[in-house]
Structures are given as C-alpha cells and as structure tokens.
C-alpha cells in the first residue's frame, strides 16, 4: 500500500507503470486520475489545496485499509497533491490491483468517494475577482451511502 501526500507534480504514467510492474498475482489494475478543471463560467486562475499535515496521511491510510478489507486487493496506491495548482494539472490519482477487474473497479470507486468526503483536504478556487473555499457537498455525502 502506498500513500503519498505531496506538493510536487507526479508522472502518472511512471506511477502506473511502477505500480503495475510490482504486481505478480494481479490480473487487473484500475486507475483514476483527478485533474484541476476550470469553473463552469471559466476564469479559474488556480486552485489552492490545503491539508492537515500528519493527519492527512493517516486518514488516507485508513481509507485504503477499509478498501482492502472490503475487496480482495493485492495493492493500493493513493497520491494526492496540495498547494497551488492550475487548471489542467493532475491533482491526485488512485490505483488498485486485484486478481479480477470487478474488485479493482469497485475499490477504486469506493476510494474516490471516501477521499472526496473524508480526507482532510480543502480547496480554494481563485479567479481574478474572487477567492472562494469549496464547501462540503450533499451529493458527495450521499455518494457514501452507496457503500
């Protein structure tokens, strides 16, 4: 299990290759990548991601553990960035490895839902005129009920 919380950009392709090549018994690797997107009305200059150092890694590890107890996974990778990111930048990724694809897909979906609502990250969207924190969303909370 690999949990990385970092400011620096990462090479998604290299991460996926490393993760995949380390799996001897897996028949499936599923990956998800989150990208900073512009606001619907445009104008996003950058996004600022704040986190709770020390606790963030712990929370992500706990979520990954939950995934491993619920699905037969061979390995899990979670990378989440913080700091200033501009539209188009990769903000995070998860990868799951399993013998069969169903477990890998479901676990990746579960990880994303929980990371969105239960990991201590906060996002601030900065435009030329505004700087707004993104609040918790009801839809994200409801997504947890699926599990």
């Amino acid at each position, binding site marked *: 299990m690999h949990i990385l919380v970092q400011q620096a950009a990462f090479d998604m392709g290299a991460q996926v290759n490393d993760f995949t090549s380390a799996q001897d018994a897996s028949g499936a690797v599923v990956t998800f990548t989150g990208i900073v997107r512009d606001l619907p009305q445009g104008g996003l200059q950058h996004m600022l991601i*704040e986190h*709770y150092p020390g*606790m963030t890694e712990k929370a992500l590890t706990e979520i990954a553990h939950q995934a491993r107890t619920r699905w037969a996974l061979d390995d899990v990778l979670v990378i989440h960035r913080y700091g200033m990111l501009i539209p188009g930048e990769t903000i995070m990724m998860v990868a799951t490895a399993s013998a069969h694809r169903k477990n890998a897909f479901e676990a990746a979906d579960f990880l994303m839902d929980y990371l969105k609502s239960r990991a*201590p990250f906060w996002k601030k969207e900065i435009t030329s005129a505004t700087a707004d*924190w993104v*609040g*918790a969303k009801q839809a994200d909370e409801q997504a947890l009920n699926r599990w």
Partner: protein
Amino acid sequence: MKILYFAWVRERIGLPSEELENRSGTVRDLIEDLRAREERYAAAFADLSALRVQLINS
C-alpha cells in the same frame, strides 16, 4: 483541549488553533458556545452544513 481550524473557518476566526478548557457536551454545544463569542466566530460557523469536525484523542 486544542482546536485546529482550517480553510474558511481559520480565515474568518483569524487563528489556526486555540486552546480551550476541557469540557463535556457535544461538538454542537461547543460550536454554539463559540458562535456566541464574537461575530468572527459566528461568521466562521454560519453554514454548519459545510462544516466537518473530527475528534482526536491524544
């Protein structure tokens, strides 16, 4: 007890953390007390639906 504030809560209160006397009661009770303190706390806790709280025993 120590309270850490993040994001807009930190910005509106103007503090990253503060020490409070240990207390019994719920988190909701604590927030109501803080809200009643000063306008900046009331502003920080105006929308409780967007607030997330974690209790950590150390």
